[in-house]
């Protein structure tokens, strides 16, 4: 196995928490605050890993399995994603399905872990989580189907290789729609504004954060790290399609990729600073909108 294939996993494992830091920094900057250090997420993780743990008496091994599954799923996902032209570590036709479904697995266990506590708040969060993800899933896969139609490939590696400046010039509108849909999915799946507010402190309004209320210590570290990895992976997917830097030189591609990720973080930060959270009842409409964008893209590429 050639070394470049390891790029995505290595980058993700190392820099995923950094992305969170950048987002928060941008938010603080836009809001006129100094904000936490860029590396704050790393410090948080280190602190949590050094702690002991307190488990609810209601819980079982499911509660403990949740965070681990979250991290593992995201790690497997990193192995499916390429950087630019460089093939993914484990790429194969149909890998995008595995990508979508390992996240499904992670979500399933996160939700179960939340229900394991018997807390009504966590149940509430779990209920919302499954609702929104059920709607986000078709949007994601239909968007990828549009890309598959456009590039004639069914593996993420092939798709990324097929995306180029040329592709954008010939099928720009479709790819733009796909990118928009993926951005919405990205925001929803990672519990960002306008779907969920990671910074809120009112349990009744939270989605993702409320599900992990009872986790502490290393478990919570895993939860945070898993979330960061997921943010990275879905971000990388979006960037791979939206930023068509395909020079043939892995270094330049990687640089383009890194720039794209940074830009994405900035965009997320900007969105979070400028928008309010949607009412929960409006979120399905947003996700249906994402699915509609994907469908529109499909119509454009099928034509």
């Amino acid at each position: 196995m050639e070394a470049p294939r390891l790029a995505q996993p290595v980058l993700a494992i190392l820099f995923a928490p950094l992305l969170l830091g950048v987002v928060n920094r941008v938010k603080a900057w836009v809001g006129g605050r100094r904000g936490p250090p860029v590396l704050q997420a790393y410090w948080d993780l280190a602190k949590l890993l050094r702690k002991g743990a307190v488990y609810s008496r209601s819980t079982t091994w499911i509660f403990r399995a949740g965070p681990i599954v979250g991290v593992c799923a995201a790690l497997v996902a990193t192995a499916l994603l390429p950087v630019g032209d460089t093939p993914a570590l484990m790429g194969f036709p149909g890998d995008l399905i595995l990508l979508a479904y390992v996240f499904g697995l992670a979500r399933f266990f996160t939700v179960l872990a939340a229900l394991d506590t018997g807390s009504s708040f966590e149940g509430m969060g779990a209920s919302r989580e499954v609702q929104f993800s059920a709607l986000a899933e078709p949007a994601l896969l239909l968007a990828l189907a549009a890309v598959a139609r456009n590039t004639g490939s069914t593996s993420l590696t092939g798709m990324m290789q097929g995306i180029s400046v040329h592709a954008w010039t010939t099928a720009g509108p479709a790819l733009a729609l796909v990118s928009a849909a993926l951005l919405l999915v990205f925001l929803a799946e990672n519990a960002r504004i306008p779907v969920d507010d990671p910074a809120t402190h009112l349990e009744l309004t939270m989605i993702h954060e409320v599900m992990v209320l009872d986790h502490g210590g290393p478990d919570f570290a895993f939860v945070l790290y898993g979330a960061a990895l997921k943010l990275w992976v879905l971000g990388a997917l979006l960037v791979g399609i939206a930023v068509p830097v395909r020079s043939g030189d892995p270094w330049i591609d990687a640089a383009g990729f890194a720039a794209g990720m940074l830009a994405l973080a900035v965009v997320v930060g900007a969105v979070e600073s400028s928008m309010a959270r949607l009412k929960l009842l409006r979120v399905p409409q947003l996700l249906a909108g994402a699915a509609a964008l994907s469908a529109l893209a499909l119509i454009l590429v099928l034509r």
Partner: protein
Amino acid sequence: MSLFFVGIGVLLVGGLLSAAAGRNGPWSGRLGALGAVVGCGLALAPAVGVLGTGVALESRLPWPMPGGSFRVEIDALSAFFLLPILALSALAAVYGTGYLRPAPRPPGAHWLYYNALVAGMALTVAARNGILFLIAWETMTLASFFLVTYDHQKESVREAGWIYMVATHLGTAFLLALFLLLQKSSGSLDFDRLEPGTHAGLLFVLAVLGFGTKAGFLPLHVWLPEAHPAAPSHVSALMSGVMIKTGIYGLVRILTLLGPPPLWWGWLLVGIGATSGILGVLFALAQHDLKRLLAYHSVENIGIIALGLGLGVLGVASGSHTLAVLGFAGGLLHVANHAAFKGLLFLGAGAVLHATGAREIDHLGGLQKKMPWTAGCFLVGAAAISGLPPLNGFVSEFLIYLGAFRAVSGLGTGVAVPAIAVIGSLALIGGLAAACFSKAYGMVFLGEARSGHAEHAHDPGGAMVAPMLVLAAACAAIGLAGPWVVRAIGPAIAALAGPGDLPETGLLGRVSLGAGAFLALAALLAFLRSRLLAGRRVGAAATWGCGYAAPSPRMQYTASSYAQPLTDLLRLFLRTRKHLRQPGGYFPGPSSLETETPDVCRDRIFEPVFRGFGWVLARLNWLQVGQVHLYVLYIALTLLALLIWRLH
């Protein structure tokens, strides 16, 4: 082949002996189950052999019935269907010995019907003559009817039995038309002499209607959510896991007889699959009854199978071998997978019912700690049915997805459009199924007990746990050994998709690799955590109630509230009825909210139709009002009318 017949014989003899043992309950049960297990084992051997060698077994016995001949053949397709049928039957029989104890009455009759059902299914799948097929088919119906009505002292069970019988029998009417049309040109009902003639399309529609009723295609599924909850759980497992698959078998068998399919058959199947899948899981989501929920999931999974078969048909119709192989492989494999995980889930639900006496999800909770084995097995089933890796549900869905993506990326619009529908609906189904099973598993097994029912539950005995363990292991094994499994059922796929290799199915190896990596990482992280926590303080406390001082189990989120956002969102299809008693005034009294989601298809399609028929028929009552004058008048008028009509 003789082993197969011996197996069938053992099944029937076991059933008869069990019935004859009569009042001696334990022995009767043991004899029946023993017959089932041994019979299934014997009959399984030739099926495995056929799949292994690829050589079909055939036998033809004299049978003096006009148009009939006792032709039985186990080819790859039959063998493939026999495998889950016989395996699950044997396991469910073992489970049944535990489940039926303590029995309200001697179980002899039950085992007779059980074994007859298994024999009927096996013969249905192996029959190669229309009349033989129909007899086996009807025997299956009759036996399962008596199994469903095991608890016939309950009104709801009788109602369920009636609906079940009516539905399947009316379905059989379509099959009669189908077979009699097929034999018209040759006059023989032997499968190899059936010819579609010029109206293959009509025949296909008849097959979809007739077999679809058994399989549970929407909107013909109405009997499923009634019959499955009514039956004893191991019977539900058998019916849901394999009996409805005989409908799928019939459909694919007819497909092989109808010649090259046009594109619209694929469209039709995909359409049926998408509606069954999405609405099936939606209905499931709205249910409060665990077994009813599982029953609706059968509709969903039949939908997924139809999606796969639809893609396969599209592949054959468009000449794309890859698509055909992927579609049919996905569809067929899902048949076996569904047998494994749905069987497992029904057995699990049965264990819960046996231990707590409750099927209402909202009355349960916290069983993970009290029934760890059942809970673990149920979790495997729940994850598998949600199509999550690394379990078997994902493998078959992966093949279907892959086929659909292949079609979207490389084939013409006529195939790509239904393929997009497949992708969209599979994605939606997957998400909703995960929602539904996180609800089912979470509410039943996690948290704290919501009522006294669940307080004193404990794991059932070995006879009930062992089958669940076997099935859970099967779910995991198929999930991890995907490529080998697909290669093993290759001959069956080739029977539908046409001869040739099995392109792209090897990719399942990569899936397995990913799953393996996942498991390794999980083990690593679990180890890491235990190292981290070693020597540190690990405390136990109450769940954090967000500041509320006196939390009680009744404050937990319930299944209804869990599902409410989704059911509200999709109320257009569900028509959930709410009975709300709102708190009011300064000192509000007790208040409550109840919801029920009756079957829309039953309420909006079948009941009006039946009522319409009833109305018309009731109008005919004037024919017989008791007046002898009028009766003679009818005769006179008939005579006159005939005289005038036929003579001029």
